[in-house]
C-alpha cells in the first residue's frame, strides 16, 4: 500500500464528477475555506495480494459480527429462540438488568422483538417464515499494508460514500487508466443483491402485489445532496436490476411481477391506523394514498425510534403478512452502534485466530483502570462526531458533535498510518470495505489531515498494481 502523489488530472474533472452524481464535492472546511471532497490526482496503490488479504479478512470479520450479535440477542428476554430461553425469559421485561440489548445498546424495548425477528429471518435453523432483506454495509478499518486490518466501526445501517465509491471512482479508473485494476465490484454486486433479496422476500410473502413498488427514502433536511444522491444511486441500481431481468428471471425470481422503484422523502411517509389494519402510506389522502410494501431508507433506526411513528412502525412490522418491510432491517442497529466493538472484544478477546482483526474495546463500566491511552467514541456518533483521542491520560485530539448522552465505548488507540506528501503534509487514510449482501465487493478511502476521520475528510481513489 502506498500513496501516489502525482497522478493524472482530468480536464474538467469537477464537471465530470458532478455529472456522475457527486454534486457535493465542493465543500467548506472547518476553517471556513472552500475545499474539494474529491481528490483528483493523488491516489492509493495496493498490490493484488494486499487486496486478496483484505477480501479474506473482511469476510472473516463479517462472520465475527454475526457471532457477536447472536450473543447479544440471546441475552434478550423477548428472544423466543434463545439458548438460554428459560433463564432469559424468566427475567421478564427488557431492562438494563435483564436484557443485553438494553444494557449495552440502550435501544428501546418496543423495538427488540422485531430486531430479533429480523435477525433470525435469514437463519436456516431459526427461520421465522418471513424474510428481511439486507443489501449493504461498510466496514471502516485501519490498514497500512503491513499488519492486519483493524475494525474501527461497522456502518451497517446507513453507509454513505456510495456513488463516489461505486460510480465516480470506477469511471476515474476508466478515464485515467492508472493501475491494472480496482477493487470495485459494488455496482454489479448491488444489482445481484437486490435480485436475490427481493426474490427471497417474495418467496416468504407470495401475496405481494403483481405490480410491486419499492420505495426509496431519505431526509429532505440534508441540503448538500449527499443523502439524496446516495439514495438515488441505490434506487438506480435496483431499477437496473429489475429492468434488466430476463423474462425467465422475472418469472423465476419475482413470480412474474413487474417491479418499479419510486423515491419519496422520509417526511412524506404517512402513518395509517394500525389497529384498523392500515400501515404506512405514500400520501395522506385515503382515496389516493398508496401502501408502502417495501422501503429502503437512508435514515438511521436510532433517529426513527425516537420519532412520532416509531411504535407504530414496530407494531406494523409484527404483521409479517402486510407490514411494511424496511431495508436495512432493524437488526442493523446492533451492528451500526459502536457498542458492537466492545461486544466483539468480549467474544473474541481470548481467540488469537480472530482477535487480531480487532482493537481491544470496552464499555465505560468495564474499562480497565490502567487503560490511559484510548479512543473514546459515542455509541451513536457518526462521521467522527464525539470522538476523542486520549494518550497517557491527556486528550490529544477531539471532534465535537451532538452525541454522547447514549454512552461511549473506549477502544485501544492505534494511530492511523501517515502517508506524508513531498511537502511534509500528513495524509491519514481510513479504508472503507463495502459488504454487499454479506460479502466484500469493493473499497473506498477517506483521507484526513488529522487522526480522526470526520465529515471534512476527503475521498481518495485507489488502484491495484499500478507499476506492474
Amino acid at each position: 500500500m502506498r500513496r501516489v502523489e502525482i497522478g493524472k488530472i482530468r480536464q474538467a474533472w469537477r464537471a465530470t464528477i458532478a455529472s456522475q452524481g457527486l454534486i457535493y464535492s465542493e465543500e467548506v472546511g472547518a476553517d471556513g475555506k472552500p475545499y474539494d471532497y474529491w481528490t483528483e490526482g493523488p491516489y492509493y496503490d495496493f498490490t493484488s495480494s494486499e487486496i486478496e488479504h483484505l477480501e479474506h479478512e473482511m469476510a472473516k470479520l463479517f462472520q465475527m459480527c454475526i457471532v457477536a450479535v447472536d450473543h447479544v440477542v440471546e441475552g434478550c428476554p423477548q428472544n423466543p429462540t434463545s439458548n438460554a430461553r428459560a433463564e432469559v425469559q424468566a427475567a421478564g421485561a427488557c431492562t438494563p438488568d435483564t436484557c443485553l440489548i438494553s444494557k449495552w445498546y440502550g435501544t428501546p424495548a418496543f423495538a427488540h422483538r422485531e430486531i430479533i425477528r429480523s435477525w433470525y429471518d435469514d437463519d436456516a435453523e431459526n427461520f421465522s417464515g418471513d424474510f428481511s432483506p439486507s443489501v449493504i454495509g461498510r466496514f471502516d478499518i485501519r490498514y497500512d499494508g503491513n499488519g492486519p486490518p483493524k475494525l474501527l466501526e461497522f456502518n451497517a445501517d446507513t453507509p454513505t460514500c456510495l456513488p463516489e465509491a461505486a460510480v465516480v471512482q470506477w469511471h476515474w479508473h476508466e478515464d485515467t487508466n492508472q493501475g491494472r485494476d480496482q477493487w470495485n465490484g459494488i455496482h454489479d454486486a448491488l444489482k445481484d443483491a437486490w435480485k436475490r433479496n427481493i426474490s427471497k422476500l417474495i418467496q416468504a410473502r407470495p401475496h405481494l402485489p403483481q405490480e410491486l413498488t419499492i420505495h426509496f427514502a431519505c431526509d429532505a433536511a440534508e441540503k448538500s445532496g449527499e443523502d439524496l444522491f446516495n439514495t438515488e444511486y441505490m434506487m438506480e441500481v435496483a431499477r437496473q436490476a429489475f429492468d434488466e431481468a430476463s423474462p425467465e428471471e422475472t418469472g423465476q425470481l419475482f413470480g412474474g411481477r413487474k417491479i418499479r422503484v419510486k423515491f419519496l422523502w422520509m417526511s412524506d411517509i404517512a402513518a395509517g391506523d394500525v389497529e384498523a389494519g392500515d400501515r404506512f402510506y405514500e400520501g395522506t389522502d385515503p382515496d389516493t394514498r398508496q401502501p408502502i410494501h417495501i422501503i429502503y431508507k437512508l435514515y438511521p433506526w436510532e433517529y426513527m425510534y425516537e420519532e412520532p411513528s416509531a411504535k407504530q412502525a414496530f407494531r406494523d412490522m409484527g404483521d409479517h403478512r402486510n407490514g411494511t418491510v424496511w431495508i436495512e432491517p432493524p437488526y442493523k442497529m446492533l451492528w451500526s452502534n459502536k457498542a458492537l466493538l466492545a461486544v466483539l472484544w468480549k467474544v473474541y478477546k481470548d481467540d488469537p485466530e480472530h482477535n487480531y482483526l480487532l482493537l481491544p474495546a470496552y464499555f465505560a463500566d468495564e474499562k480497565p483502570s490502567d487503560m490511559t491511552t484510548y479512543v473514546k467514541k459515542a455509541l451513536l456518533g457518526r462521521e467522527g462526531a464525539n470522538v476523542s483521542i486520549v494518550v497517557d491520560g491527556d486528550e490529544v485530539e477531539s471532534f465535537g458533535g451532538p452525541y454522547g448522552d447514549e454512552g461511549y465505548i473506549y477502544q485501544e488507540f492505534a494511530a492511523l498510518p501517515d502517508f506524508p506528501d513531498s511537502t511534509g503534509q500528513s495524509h491519514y487514510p481510513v479504508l472503507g470495505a463495502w459488504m454487499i449482501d454479506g460479502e466484500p465487493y469493493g473499497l473506498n478511502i477517506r483521507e484526513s489531515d488529522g487522526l480522526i476521520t470526520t465529515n471534512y475528510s476527503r475521498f481518495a481513489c485507489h488502484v491495484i498494481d499500478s507499476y506492474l
Partner: protein
Amino acid sequence: MTRRRSKRVELGARYLGLAAVATLGGAATLSCGSEQPQEQVYCTNANGVVVDEDYCDDSSGHGGGGGFFFLNTGNHGYGHQPGHRLTGGQRFPYNDTGARSRLGLPTTGKVGNGVARGGGFGTGSGAKGGGTGASTGS
C-alpha cells in the same frame, strides 16, 4: 489477473438528469421542488393556546389531558412555544384516533408540537436527530 471491477457502470436518465439539475441549480433546488408536507400540528387547550405536547399524549406513562385538550393542524409554521395562540386550522380531541388516522398522524401517543402532518419520520417529525441539515449517513 482476476478483474475485481464491475463490468459496466451505467446510469439511467433520472439519475443523470437529477445530477444535471443539481449541478446547475444546487442540491437545494431538488428538495425545494419536492412536495413537502405543509401543515403542522400542535397540542392546544380549548382556547387554541399551545400547551406542552404531553397533554396530548395518552400512551402509557403519560396521563394525557382528559377531554380538555386538542390537536390543531394547519399552516401554523414551526417553532411555536406553549402560550402561543393559534388562529384557524382544524381542531379535534387529541384522543380521536379516527381523526388522527385521516390526517396521517400516529393513532395514539405523543405528537410533538410543530410536527408536519403526515410526516411520521424525518424533517418536521419532531425528530431528535433529523432536521439538523447534516447527513444522516455514516
